[in-house]
Each structure stands twice: as C-alpha cells, then as structure tokens.
C-alpha cells in the first residue's frame, strides 16, 4: 500500500460521509413534502429499474466460472424469477432457484 495511514483514514472518512449523504439526500432533505406527480411516477419504478440491472451481469457472467455464461445458473435464475412472479412470493422464488441450482449442479 503506497498511502500513508492518514491518507487511508482520509479515504475511509470521505467515503463514509459521502455515502451517508447520498443515502440521506432525498429522504432527509425533502422530508414529508410531496414530490411532483411525474417524479413519483418515475420513482415507482426504482426497484425494478435498479435491481434487475444490478444482478444481470452476475447471472450472465458469474464470477465462479471466471465470467463464462453457465447454463445451470441461467436456468436457476430464470426459475427463481418465474416462480417468484407466478406465486407472487419471494420465498417460493428462492426455493425454486436454490432447488434447481442444487439439482442441476448435482446432475452435471
């Protein structure tokens, strides 16, 4: 490590404060005031706009295979999403995904 101890603490502190302010931003400063309808209409899609994009590369190029697409993991991911959607249940999704991952990995 080429940084001094003070520099490392500086990085930790700025990242801590910066990350906190990012998290606090809208929730903290807007508070109970109501945001305009068009903003709310966009924000309603935040979870489905961020989470699928967050996991898509992990599903398609898993680290465990060195980034090679893996049919077993692709099937398990598809099963998770499909069953969670069909049963409207996170739990059933996990069961289907983990179950198919385990079953397929023990076969192949």
């Amino acid at each position, binding site marked *: *490590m080429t*940084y001094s*101890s003070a*520099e*490392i603490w500086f990085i*930790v*502190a*700025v*990242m*801590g404060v910066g*990350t*906190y302010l*990012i*998290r*606090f*931003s*809208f*929730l*903290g400063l*807007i*508070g109970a005031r109501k*945001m305009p309808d*068009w*903003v709310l209409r*966009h*924000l*309603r*899609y*935040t*979870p*489905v*706009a*961020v*989470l*699928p*994009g*967050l*996991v*898509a*590369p*992990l*599903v398609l190029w*898993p*680290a*465990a295979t060195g980034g090679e697409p893996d049919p077993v993991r692709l099937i*398990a*991911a598809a099963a*998770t*999403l*499909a069953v*969670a*959607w069909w049963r*409207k249940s*996170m739990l*059933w*999704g*996990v069961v289907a*995904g*983990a179950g198919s*991952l385990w079953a397929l990995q023990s076969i192949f």
Partner: protein
Amino acid sequence: MASTTRKSAFIQGLIAGLPFLPIGIPFALLFGVVATEAGLDVAQTVGFSLLVIAGAAQFTAIQLMTEAVPIWTVLAAALAVNLRMAMYSASLQAHLGAAPLWQRICVAYLNVDASYALGVQRFEEVPETPVSDKFAFFVGTMTLMAPLWTLGTWAGAVTGDAMPNWITIDFAMPLLFLSIVGPMLKTLAHLFAAVTSIVVALFFGFLPSGTGLLIAAFAAMAVGAEIERRIGRA
C-alpha cells in the same frame, strides 16, 4: 396497541432480513481478508465497514488502492458505485419522508440494496401501514446484518483466512434479488422497466464503477413512467 403492531413490524423485518445473512457474512469476512492483505490495518478495515457499510463500493476502493491510483480517483469511483442509493433515498421518501428526522437519519445509514429491496417491496404491498411501523420494519431488516457486517469484517481482518466455501454461495445474491423482483412485476410498465434495466445494464456493462447501471436505471424508470402515463397503472 400501536406499540404491539410496531413490535411485530420489527420482528417481520428481522425475519425478512434473515436470508441475506448467509451472503452478507461471508462477504464481510472476505472484505476483512482482502483489505488487510492490501495493507490496511485492522482498525482501518473495520472502520471501512462501520462507516461506509456498502460492500461493492468498499471492494472497489480496495481494488483501486492496491493499484496506487490518486486518492481522488479512489473516492470518485467508489462513491459513483453508491450513487444508485440516491435513487433508493428518493424512492423511500414517498414511504418514510413523514418519519421524524432521527428516524430518517437511521434509515439513511441502513439504506443498502437488501434493506431497500425488502422495505420497498413491503411498503408497496401494504401501503396503508403507519409510518412508525414502516420504520420498525426497515430497521428490523438490518438489525442483524449491520452489526454482523462490521463484526464479520473484523473477524476476516484478524484471522486472515477462515473463508467459508465461498463458491457455493456466489449465486445466492442474484437469486435473492431476483426473487424480490419477481412479485414486483405487477404491470406491463414494471415488466418493461425491468427488461430495459437488464438490456441497458448489459449493453453498458463495460463502463466503470456502476455507471452503466445508473444509465440503465434512468432509462428503465423513464420507460416504466412513460408506459404508465399512456395506459395507466394496469
């Protein structure tokens, strides 16, 4: 009566957060190992997890620090990884904006991918929940994970190995988040937003520090909002 429902909301949050522990704890151990191997001392490593409490950004920072890039480059890249949390903050405002300031201060500290996903899923399912119960649920999801994130980092930093079989859990995180997203795909607008998110994130996957994910998120929100504007919330 009110305190009874608040207590049960907290317990429900606690239970909802359990599936994330088998992922979060090995991640925390790994961070402790990687950071100390990179040259941080134990206090600095634990400080990272305690103050930043954001896995992806912490790993990004350590990776860049081993490459000896300028300090400002480390900070810019690692904070960019966390920018998606501004979207979480805005999204949570609709549900928790009316909570007292001290509660919003707590929520901000605990606002990570898992707690956000669990929280927003629950708040959309039961929108009439009192704000105090929503707060209790949200805090519940992180009551075990937040201290274990710091403790796990410390354990990894002190032992230097003791890694669990990490390969077998590598895919647990994608599966958990996909199982959260599944029930959220209630309308055509949600479905198209999710598809947009995947396609754009993969297309811009080569961009550094989660920039591609931010572009994907903005595009997907625009698609969802536009479909809703044209055909309503159906």
